[in-house]
């Protein structure tokens, strides 16, 4: 089925469009809105974004494939992001990473069979002073221990 934006989202795109002198500049906001509605960015979604903004499809594709926060494949309901960069690593991020992997039974950029969880090893999230940390969808969980991570994941299962 072809992808169409909801009326409400079309209004949000229009609002984003007004921030900039060109339609192309609203592409990042629009991709976010599309991802929120559809879960991930498929070719059809990219076509619709191009249609709505009146820009070339290739512009949408080039942006979607450049930034790591846009997903071209379906992700889990809970997208678990573990930071393993230096500050987190020094405070045990890899132990957290291993525990999350073990708990969910999936590796980097994989999705659990029930599509509930997906996992990503991410670069610095700007929480270095509160390391180690994970983010689930939009929320940060900081100052973690292996036990706390287990509790958080258990509460979502």
């Amino acid at each position: 089925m072809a992808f169409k934006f909801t009326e409400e989202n079309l209004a949000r795109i229009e609002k984003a469009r007004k921030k900039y002198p060109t339609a192309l500049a609203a592409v990042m906001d629009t991709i976010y809105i599309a991802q929120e509605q559809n879960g991930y960015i498929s070719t059809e979604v990219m076509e619709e974004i191009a249609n709505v903004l009146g820009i070339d499809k290739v512009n949408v594709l080039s942006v979607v494939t450049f930034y790591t926060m846009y997903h071209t494949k379906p992700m889990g309901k809970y997208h678990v992001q573990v930071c393993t960069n230096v500050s987190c690593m020094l405070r045990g991020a890899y132990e957290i990473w291993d525990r999350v992997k073990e708990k969910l039974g999936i590796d980097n950029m994989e999705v659990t069979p029930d599509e509930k969880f997906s996992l990503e090893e991410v670069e610095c999230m700007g929480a270095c002073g509160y390391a180690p940390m994970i983010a689930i969808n939009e929320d940060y969980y900081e100052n973690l221990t292996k036990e706390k991570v287990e509790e958080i994941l258990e509460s979502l299962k």
Partner: protein
Amino acid sequence: MERIVLPEIPNLNQIEVYLSNGGFEAAKKAFCQTPDEIIDQVKKSGLRGRGGAAFLTGLKWSFMPKTTNLPKYLCINGDESEPGSFKDRQIFEDNPFQLIEGAIITCYAIGAKVAYLYIRGEYHKWIKLMQKAIDTAYEKGYLGEKMKSTFGTDFSCDLYIHKGAGAYICGEESSLMNSIEGHRGYPRVKPPFPAQKGLWGCPTTINNVETITNVPPIISKGWEWFSKIGAPKHPGTLLYGISGHVNKPGVYEYPTGMLLTELIYDIAGGVPGNKKIKCVIPGGSSMPPLRGDKLEGVRMDAESLKEAGSAVGTAGIMVMDEDTNLLKVLIRIAHFYHHESCGQCTPCREGTGWMEKTLHRILEGHGTSKDLDLLISVANNIEGNTICALGDAAAWPVKFMIERFRDEFETYVKKDVSIPVPNKVHSMRNTAVPLADIYK
């Protein structure tokens, strides 16, 4: 100690509290003066950019053309992706209105009608907080058309948030502009500099969030007051983000030029278990690391750190204790730059990958002493040969970590190895390692 960027006032993120503590008075004062007078005051205050390069802010503003028919833009860089720095989110959370006021004054000084605040996409929570603050400012008449009657001036400006989407490179100013324009975050060749040709080919100034937040107090309390705080050549305060092996990690605002040892031991509570410090990266992962036994007397300002062989960067201090495996740290850093290289310039795109692979070879126990020289040579061939500073940022940690901790890195590699070299005439012969090994 008086704090400039993050004053100790509870609920300062509520507009009523901000207003009752002298909020938007600096903007009122600014509108009674000419833009040139504002630029002059910021120049005299000695304020330097807080985003990494420590460039003089007033000087940067003065590059904006005075006579042009093109619209001008201000970009505020809150991409904050440098590993080890986590200061801007504190401003979004605790003092958003001072940032907005700073943006208004800066727009007035450089003649911009529109400012874009670029915030990294992962900061969902802080984007929401900041958007709420901006909406409040619009509502109360401190932004947009309404500000004309609030301030009794004919100047008005708009402030919009542009949400990034997970690319470290977008913290580079020209890449940030490409990202706002809706392109991939590729850095641009300079010149032309942003002040000549920036956003959509128009004159643009890009400043860090912390820099802009410093502007209102400079205007309200005067440049003389500001220039007397901290180190004379790098005045003001810094938001020191201390992380890694310390007892009390976090963001602390103190004057520039603080002793690094004082920050680590007195303010951040020292190293857990009273261990010795092996290594400190003073300004985010791109800056050359310092040896733990050479920290005495090193101060956190542009001049002193340059002398010590590093740079102030974003003042994100990463502390590593004596038990840290520096090879693993370096691999993690190399992996980061390999992942984040945008791929435009060959030295950076290929070099960052080679450095990571070579370091992995050492970790797996196949490294030789020559690999260490090879790594330094690759780093030297990246540095200075790329469009933007990510190349340098990728090269410095590798180069300086190996040079300054050669003793430790020698223990990770085999000493006298005579690995047969399969094709000696090949240009890779200097690596003294089978090519198959390199390509694996």
